[in-house]
């Protein structure tokens, strides 16, 4: 009722006026009829009506929603206040915007990478299968989630705890048909994949179990919605047409519903095909029935009412049965000593509600650390704004006292001050969202992923906006509440009578501001400590000797658009190396089969007569072309590298690194000796050289034992080669020429990921780069804010005690006494803040320990430097106002107020 009256209140008011008018007119008429003169008659009528303003006031109150009404009033008043002091407002809004923006930016990433669930119905019931313990064969990925296809089938066909169990493996394939061949990420999936995931078709139909029966028998493909939209411009007639993947024709049968990108967050599958087509797509991995070859990633959906523990128990039994079957395979009959450790594997289920979390595993910890860091920054920004508000409140004491004197309640004034805070926070929030979008975009651009095929988005969605809103609201409460309560306390009788009304903040206000400064100092210490640890980690990583001269090297992947015969590949690779070596500005060119520094590696057993078989000697392997050592600047320590004379000759040659020579050959270069690849393998490969120790899959850790084979010995298995070209100058200047030369050599070659090698190495330490860069930035920002906060408080203190200082100086106090007076105001605050920050720093160190490299979480140097830096900054912020205090002219000070 009141709402309706409120909304129509101007009309109501007019109507009431009309009623009053009609009353007066009538009464006047009657008075005239009784014989009064018209002016007297009207005056008498008005008297009869009574208190007009009281009636109007009553009516007005009936027509208003009190909360809403005051709110509007407060808002108008706040806007006037902010307009009156634009400098203050700008400072407050800017610090809040930085704090809120940083939070929104990190949350944009945290939400998508750490928090969000797969966009499928009931993601909570999806699980991933996993086996811990050795695999006893070749294995894909992290060594725990991949299963062999026969094992997967056995589990799929016997289980009864899942509504369905399916699987996939990601791969990339050249897609031809457009203007130039393109590499796209594809997923090879079991027939029931979309049924288990619960994903529907946008167009046509999706795969079904009938599409996955016999090897090479189902050349059908499903397109991902966003890929269909961008690559085929939403052309509906694509269904029924033929596309070529790695040169083989596939019939497009449908397009998935919008939003589904597969089960790997951030890295969308663009095309799905039945896993039975694997031999067609990658002829170098032809066999689906090898049970010692683990490459298929199963996903399953729990039956309703079956818990993950129950399902796990049931599946363990099945997996154990499967292991018993596998024990009868040749591997275990030949090497019975492996049986025991094979049976020690443990089968587990893992939630897959967020899909396969490679990205999550890699970035979860750094993101959570960053989320805490930005929360601390926001807290500091809030404290600063609170400090500003308190200071401003102190200078508004007279105004507030007057308002209280004329009848405003304390709560009413506090509410008005809070409205002002909310307005500031709101403006900060809006600016923060803009800053956040920009920051998360820059962050994403710095991640080492091919941006075209990476779908973590920087655009704030509703969830991010909601987050920003909540953060803003909390912010307003945090920095607004205490000052509002404090500032509204001004008692009219005291304040208005006081001579020093202008600066009478009261000691409670100063105490509160000091508490905020202590909080800021503590958080700054914490952030500086974190930044110090991350920077030292990065320095340590940078100092690592890679054993490779990485500067001036360009790297790229090169693969034929469709599979070539081995003889042709031999010919092509040699021709390509020759041609690229002749490009102006290129000094040396070589290639390998397993890319450097990308985490991938190839390792296996070796048979070396000098080494006991039971110690299971092993080495990392790579297959390289002649020119490789020259291109990467790896020195040959003994013997020789490969030459084109070794190429295609059928003689198997290898080079080993110093590490393996040290461990297996007593540091005696084994030139001319032979070894075999695998357990009890024939000694068919001759060692022709020893090369210097250099990093392989990662920049961290021990340098592994390495054996490099000539690439011609495995030419049938080669699909993509990784080319390394050493330029004489800036590697970027030769990139275009290299690309042209590759296309000229063979137009069917697809080039991927061309970039300087240093960039590729940076991608391995991207976490550390990001953490050290961002943590340092945030820490410096935080310290700056804290110093400003401290400076503000002390300036205020000096102003408040001007008279007192003047008297002291007039009585003969020395300058240093005055300095001591001011220092004593800040010392306790600073020391308390530092102590709290250092204590919290030990906790933080423990939490981020696994993000550090060769730095202890309580690194003394970092702690000492941090405390030193903060003391220096604090001293600066203290001595400036202290110095100003010593310059107070007693005569002048005594006259003020």
């Amino acid at each position: 009722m009141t709402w309706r009256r409120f909304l129509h209140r101007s009309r109501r008011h007019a109507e009431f006026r009309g009623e009053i008018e009609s009353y007066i007119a009538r009464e006047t008429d009657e008075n005239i009829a009784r014989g009064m003169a018209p002016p007297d008659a009207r005056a008498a009528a008005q008297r009869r009506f009574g208190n007009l303003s009281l009636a109007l006031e009553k009516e007005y109150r009936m027509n208003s929603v009190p909360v809403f009404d005051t709110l509007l009033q407060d808002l108008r008043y706040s806007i006037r206040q902010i307009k009156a002091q634009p400098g203050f407002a700008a400072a407050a809004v800017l610090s809040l915007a930085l704090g809120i923006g940083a939070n929104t930016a990190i949350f944009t990433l945290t939400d998508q990478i750490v928090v969000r669930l797969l966009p499928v119905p009931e993601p909570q019931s999806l699980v991933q299968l996993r086996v811990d313990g050795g695999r006893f064969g070749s294995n894909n990925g992290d060594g725990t989630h991949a299963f062999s296809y026969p094992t997967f089938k056995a589990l799929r066909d016997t289980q009864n705890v899942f509504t369905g169990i399916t699987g996939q493996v990601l791969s990339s394939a050249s897609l031809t048909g457009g203007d130039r061949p393109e590499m796209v990420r594809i997923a090879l999936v079991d027939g029931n994949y979309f049924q288990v995931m619960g994903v529907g078709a946008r167009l046509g139909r999706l795969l079904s179990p009938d599409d996955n029966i016999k090897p090479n028998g189902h050349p059908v493909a499903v397109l991902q919605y966003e890929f269909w939209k961008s690559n085929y411009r939403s052309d509906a007639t694509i269904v029924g047409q033929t596309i070529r993947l790695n040169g083989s024709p596939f019939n497009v049968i449908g397009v998935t519903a919008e939003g589904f990108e597969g089960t790997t967050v951030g890295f969308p599958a663009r095309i799905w095909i039945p896993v039975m087509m694997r031999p067609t797509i990658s002829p170098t991995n032809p066999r689906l029935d090898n049970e010692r070859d683990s490459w298929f990633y199963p996903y399953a959906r729990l039956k309703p009412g079956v818990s993950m523990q129950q399902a796990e128990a049931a599946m363990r039994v099945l997996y154990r049965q499967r292991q018993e079957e596998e024990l009868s395979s040749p591997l275990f009959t030949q090497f019975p000593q492996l049986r025991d450790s094979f049976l020690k594997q443990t089968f587990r289920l893992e939630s897959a509600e967020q899909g396969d979390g490679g990205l999550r595993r890699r970035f979860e910890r750094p993101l959570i650390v960053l989320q805490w860091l930005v929360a601390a920054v926001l807290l500091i920004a809030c404290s600063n704004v609170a400090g500003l508000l308190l200071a401003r409140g102190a200078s508004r004491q007279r105004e507030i006292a007057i308002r209280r004197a004329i009848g405003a309640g304390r709560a009413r004034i506090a509410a008005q001050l809070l409205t002002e805070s909310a307005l500031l926070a709101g403006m900060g929030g809006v600016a923060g969202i803009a800053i956040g979008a920009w920051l998360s975009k820059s962050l994403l651009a710095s991640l080492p992923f091919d941006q075209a095929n990476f779908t973590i988005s920087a655009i704030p969605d509703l969830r991010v906006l909601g987050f920003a809103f909540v953060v803003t609201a909390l912010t307003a409460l945090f920095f607004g509440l205490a000052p509002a309560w404090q500032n509204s306390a001004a008692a009219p009788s005291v304040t208005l009578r006081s001579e020093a009304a202008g600066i009478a903040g009261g000691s409670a206000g100063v105490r509160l501001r000091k508490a905020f400064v202590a909080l800021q100092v503590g958080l700054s210490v914490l952030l500086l400590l974190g930044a110090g640890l991350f920077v030292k980690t990065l320095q340590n990583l940078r100092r690592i000797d890679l054993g490779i001269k990485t500067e001036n090297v360009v790297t790229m992947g090169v693969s034929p658009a469709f599979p070539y015969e081995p003889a042709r590949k031999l010919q092509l690779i040699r021709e390509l190396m020759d041609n690229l070596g002749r490009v102006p500005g290129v000094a040396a060119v070589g290639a390998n089969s397993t890319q450097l520094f990308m985490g991938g590696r190839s390792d296996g057993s070796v048979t070396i007569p000098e080494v006991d078989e039971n110690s299971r000697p092993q080495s990392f392997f790579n297959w390289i072309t002649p020119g490789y050592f020259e291109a990467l600047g790896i020195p040959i320590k003994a013997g020789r590298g490969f030459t084109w004379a070794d190429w295609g000759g059928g003689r198997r040659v290898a080079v080993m690194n110093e590490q393996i020579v040290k461990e297996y050959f007593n540091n005696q270069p084994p030139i001319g000796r032979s070894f075999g690849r695998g357990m009890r393998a024939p000694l068919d490969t001759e060692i022709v050289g020893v090369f210097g120790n250099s990093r392989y899959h990662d920049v961290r850790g021990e340098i592994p034992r390495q054996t490099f084979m000539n690439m011609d010995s495995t030419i049938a298995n080669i699909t993509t080669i990784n080319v390394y070209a050493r330029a004489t100058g800036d590697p970027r200047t030769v990139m275009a020429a290299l690309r042209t030369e590759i296309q000229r050599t063979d137009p069917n070659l697809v080039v991927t990921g061309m970039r300087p090698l240093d960039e590729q190495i940076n991608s391995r330490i991207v976490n550390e780069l990001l953490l050290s860069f961002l943590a340092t930035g945030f820490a410096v920002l935080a310290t700056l804010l804290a110093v400003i906060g401290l400076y503000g408080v002390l300036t205020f203190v000096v102003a408040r005690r001007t008279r007192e200082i003047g008297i002291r100086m007039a009585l003969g106090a020395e300058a240093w006494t005055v300095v001591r007076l001011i220092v004593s105001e800040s010392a306790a605050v600073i020391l308390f803040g530092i102590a709290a920050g250092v204590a919290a720093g030990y906790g933080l160190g423990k939490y981020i320990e696994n993000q550090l490299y060769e730095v202890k979480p309580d690194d003394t140097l970092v702690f000492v430097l941090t405390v030193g830096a903060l003391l220096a900054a604090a001293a600066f912020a203290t001595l400036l106002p202290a110095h100003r205090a010593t310059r107070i002219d007693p005569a002048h000070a005594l006259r003020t107020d």
Partner: protein
Amino acid sequence: MLLGTLDMLVLRALLPAPAHGHTIAHVIETTSEDILLVEHGSLYPALHRLEDKGYIASFWGTSENNRKAKYYRLTKAGKDHLIGERSRFETLVRAITRVLGPAS
């Protein structure tokens, strides 16, 4: 005037026929032989409150001397309310009279 009785008096004044604010004030005063004096200005907020509660409804009409005036009329809910209030009031008055006893 007794607290809370104004509403009842207003409703009673409207029982015979719709009227405007001026008439209502005068009816109350004259029927009570000028014992119950209503401040005429405060009558209007009361009328609006009663209207909000749905006991009376209003319409603009023309008065006897051709002036536009806002008329109020009793609604069904208003009549029911009046009956209820009236019996409550009478109970109260009887009770008070019994307590006071016969006048000495």
